């Protein structure tokens, strides 16, 4: 029995938990800040995008690992 697809799915699924939580926190905090102070949207924007990118990178690592499992 070939378990390779299961391994790839598990790698992606488990690896997406952490970044998912992190992204949720980041977005909720950004929205909160925006709600409190709508004029700060310009100042929030760049750090927000960068933070999201850094959190998302972890999920992308999981994707790359699962792709490597799947295709090699």
């Amino acid at each position: 029995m070939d378990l390779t697809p299961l391994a790839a799915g598990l790698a992606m699924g488990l690896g997406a938990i952490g970044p998912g939580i992190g992204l949720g926190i980041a977005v909720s905090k950004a929205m909160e800040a925006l709600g409190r102070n709508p004029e700060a949207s310009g100042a929030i924007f760049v750090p927000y995008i960068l933070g999201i990118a850094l959190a998302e990178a972890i999920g992308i690592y999981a994707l790359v690992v699962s792709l490597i499992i799947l295709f090699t």
Partner: protein
Amino acid sequence: MPDEGGSLIHVRIDAEPLFSVGPLTVTNSMVGAVVTSLILLLVAWYVTRRSTLVPSRLQTAVEFPIEWIGNIVEGTGGTRWRSFAPLVISIFLFVLFANWLGLLPGVGTIGLFEQEHGEQVLVPFVRSASADLNFTLGLAIVSFFAFIGFGVKANGVKGYLKHTFVANPAYMTPIMTPIHLISELSRLISLSMRLFGNVFAGEVLLATMLALVPLIVPIAFLGLELVFGFVQALVFALLTMTYVILAIAENEQHGTAELEDSTHDHPGDEPDRHAAPQGTAA
């Protein structure tokens, strides 16, 4: 298609070779990169040739992303922002159009059938350049050497090495140097893997959705990919900008070399940059 079901979704992680010129094998993602560059070059050539003080519609559309990213760089980049703003804007536009090229109809669907492991496989002529790790890694290497170069230019070789590798209490240096080294090198990996992973996952997602529900539903995912392509281009450009700013480090102790005006690095397009404040960035 040879058979139904699983093999309907066929995505290759590496770019398919089309033909080879001597030792150089030309893949379809290289064609995609060339097409992207040609689009950008032709639009830039056409617009700058007939640019006017009161911009036409096309000129406004072309100037908008340049001004927008330029304002972001100006707001966060410190006194030397003019020297690296062109790099950030170019990376943004190039990655943006490389991402969006993969969403055009015909890209990835027009090609030749080839035999591979006994089954017929479509080899498309053009593939989105950023769905190939070679392209994103190449861009990440450009960004890597760019921030090292700007750091060296701003602080000198000695100053840059000192700023990067010597920790603040000097006795911590033996512990911190390997960490710094790894963190600098991991930027290369995370920059390239992030862009590649996002765009490639987007292609897989679109292929899967097209195979599952061929009608209507993929439109929503095409819209999603439009947004993702834009966000990833922005992320790549802004991370490059952040790395350059960190390497220049003009807010830290050595603030000597900063008042020499760096306008000579500027290519001299977009004359009307001074107007909008940072608050318009969102």
